[in-house]
């Protein structure tokens, strides 16, 4: 794991679980350790029971997994950094559920995100408690939770205290309400399903942008909803009839829409010709196109339009000599040289040297061919690092702003809690709250609070935007690795 990755993990743990947890988890970033080693490494800074408690909390959220090593008597703990990074996506998960199902489902997911892992009855009762709802709604929420399991957003997870495995066919089986050992069946979020939704959303947006037609987006979304396997480079074949029966609009021109998407140079879909018209989605191709698009945008933003042109020309022609590159991109000779060298120095372009073999006399005339090309894998790795760094910087600023204005924010939080309490009792008057606000905070403080809120929101928004890039890079890596 890179240092940027670790930095973000530390920041996330510090923001959500506090300084102690992040400090205790830090040594685990560099490899799995037993409790004994961990406490030795922390050098008595934290009492043993605190370390134990931290690990229990982290185990609960699956941020740490316990590994029983064959060679060692002790249990070792391993930090699951990928899961920690998922915290950045939590707001996205909630918005997906809210858009797809509604507010109550969102509340359930939110509760599970706060609990880490829990039995279904606990999730439902906690949710009711958190939302200040009456117990009559228990059955209502229970049904909704069951629906979430059926839709594969919740999945069963093994327990640690008494080790129980979950059978493959039972992962998405909901428990019955009065089941005897219902409390022992723990549920957690199924990240894959959420990621599938995120990916589908990005694909649909891309299709709508390409064709400037919202109905194409509808068609694509119907096709994507019928795809079974998410990790395969090409989806399962979907029959036209199935799409037609699930589609709400554009029935008359369905085949035309599909032909359109298929014939476009982006080639998102494939159609089989014959008696049974089957459609497959080229997930790998789509992800590659989206990644290329990100890279182009990055190059264009960093180095300018001309460089982006050279970059794209190199990608579409694979290997190009400088002169040929100049003729293809129609950029003046000298400018081409400067721009390519700039791209080369920043590792966006690579150079392959083709030397002429030595002659029999052991001499060669020194002429070599320099061919420009891209190394997409390396570029992805570097860009991922850069984006991680950017997220880290945003989190750093967020943390610094909160630290600097700790007192003010604490007061504001206390005030907000008070207002909430009054509102719940329906005693609050708008004017009364305004007056109280004026008395408690000076005008300059109020301005400061506003700007702090704006800054925090800005940072959070950018973190989420950058996270989409990370998500696409991750998908690219996965698709290009599975194909080998």
């Amino acid at each position, binding site marked *: 794991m890179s240092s940027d990755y670790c930095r973000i993990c530390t920041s996330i743990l510090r923001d959500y679980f506090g300084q102690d947890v992040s400090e205790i988890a830090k040594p685990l970033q560099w490899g799995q350790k037993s409790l004994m080693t961990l406490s030795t490494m922390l050098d008595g800074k934290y009492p043993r029971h605190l370390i134990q408690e931290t690990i229990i909390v982290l185990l609960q959220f699956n941020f740490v997994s316990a590994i029983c090593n064959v060679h060692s008597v002790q249990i070792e703990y391993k930090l699951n950094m990928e899961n920690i990074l998922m915290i950045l996506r939590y707001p996205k998960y909630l918005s997906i559920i809210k858009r797809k199902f509604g507010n109550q489902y969102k509340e359930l997911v939110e509760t599970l995100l706060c609990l880490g892992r829990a039995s279904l009855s606990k999730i439902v009762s906690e949710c009711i408690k958190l939302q200040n709802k009456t117990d009559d709604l228990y059955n209502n929420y229970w049904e909704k939770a069951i629906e979430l399991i059926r839709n594969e957003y919740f999945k069963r997870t093994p327990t640690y205290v008494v080790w129980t495995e979950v059978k493959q066919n039972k992962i998405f089986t909901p428990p019955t309400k009065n089941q005897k050992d219902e409390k022992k069946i723990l549920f957690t979020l199924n990240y894959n399903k959420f990621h599938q939704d995120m990916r589908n959303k990005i694909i649909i947006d891309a299709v709508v942008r390409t064709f400037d037609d919202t109905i194409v987006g509808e068609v694509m979304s119907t096709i994507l909803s019928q795809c079974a396997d998410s990790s395969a480079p090409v989806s399962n074949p979907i029959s036209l009839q199935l799409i037609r029966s699930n589609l709400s609009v554009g029935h008359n021109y369905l085949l*035309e829409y599909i032909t359109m998407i298929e014939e476009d140079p982006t080639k998102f879909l494939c159609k089989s010709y014959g008696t049974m018209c089957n459609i497959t989605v080229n997930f790998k191709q789509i992800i590659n196109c989206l990644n290329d698009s990100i890279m182009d945008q990055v190059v264009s933003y960093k180095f300018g339009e001309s460089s982006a042109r050279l970059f794209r020309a190199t990608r579409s022609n694979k290997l190009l000599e400088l002169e040929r590159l100049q003729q293809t991109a129609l*950029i003046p000779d000298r400018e081409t040289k400067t721009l390519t060298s700039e791209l080369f120095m920043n590792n966006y372009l690579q150079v392959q040297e083709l030397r002429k073999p030595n002659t029999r006399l052991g001499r060669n005339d020194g002429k070599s061919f320099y061919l420009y090309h891209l190394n997409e894998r390396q570029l992805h790795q570097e860009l991922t690092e850069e984006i991680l760094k950017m997220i880290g910087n945003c989190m750093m600023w967020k943390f610094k702003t909160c630290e600097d204005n700790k007192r003010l924010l604490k007061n504001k939080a206390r005030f907000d809690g008070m207002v909430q309490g009054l509102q719940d009792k329906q005693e609050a008057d708008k004017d009364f709250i305004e007056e109280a606000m004026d008395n408690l905070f000076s005008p300059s403080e109020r301005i400061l609070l506003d700007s702090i809120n*704006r800054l925090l929101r800005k940072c959070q928004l950018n973190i989420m935007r950058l996270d989409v890039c990370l998500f696409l890079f991750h998908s690219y890596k996965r698709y290009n690795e599975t194909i080998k």
Partner: protein
Amino acid sequence: MAAVKRGHRDDLSDVAPLAKKAREPETAEQRVLEIIKCSGNKGVSDEDLIRACPVLTIDERVDVVNKLITSNAITLHKVKDTLRYKYKGPTASTPGDANTEELVVFNLIRDSGRKGIWIRDVRIKSNLGLPRLKKILKSLETKKAIKAVKSVAAARKIVYMLFDLEPDSSITGGAWYSNQEFESEFIEILTKHSYKFLEAKKSKALKNTTIRSPLVKYNTSYATADRVLEFISKTGISKVRLTVEDIISILDLLVYDGLAAKRVNSEGKLEYRSTKTLLSRNAVSFLPCGSCPVIKRCSDANQLNCLNCKHMKIWTTI
């Protein structure tokens, strides 16, 4: 050589069919040249010429052949005891008062054709010293037998070619160069106009309410290079005559700029359509770190970190 030829021709005169009159000497010359040209590298013997051109009288034929030989359009070769005429290439008159050295240099330049020849290559091939060669080239230039053309490949590189030849596009750079200078502004204008055309075609196709089929709408939003060329020539932006290939390279630029998509249609022709990027605004561009040249060195343990960064400070001040 012409005298020898004449003797040889006289021997053959008995075999030759009888004369037919009223031949235009101009046309006869062209015709003979054409026959010799068609024969290519093999050349034409006198018998072949008689067979191909039975209408010419002996005298006429002798005249024509002699004229062609003196004008350097054809040469004589001896192949297995028979003389053959071979085509020499485009007629280029050697300067009348040229000496042998000049002639050697001139021939080298003539052989290079439209691509021209570099002075270094002339020197190596002719084995002449540089000062002498320069003098010869200067004298040939003053006689208007050859001309010097600047190559676009290198600013200082001058190539020599026959005076009346049009330089090859590899020397002049084609439509994108004027006076050996790259016309990037011209290219930019052409690119802009081509994009405008594609964009207009797409929006016209999408807004067209008479067509209901989405596939037809989609297909009509594509334009071939011919159509774009037609539009460009109508607007009169270009004073140079542009070819379809030129327009294709301009449209390819749009593809490289991410503004257009390209596909091959059912007739095998390239078609272009204006398009948007797959993703909306780039996430990296929202932060100053996105364009930071020293982001690789930015670290918390370093003096150069995000909290000390001037740009980040500006970004975070609201």
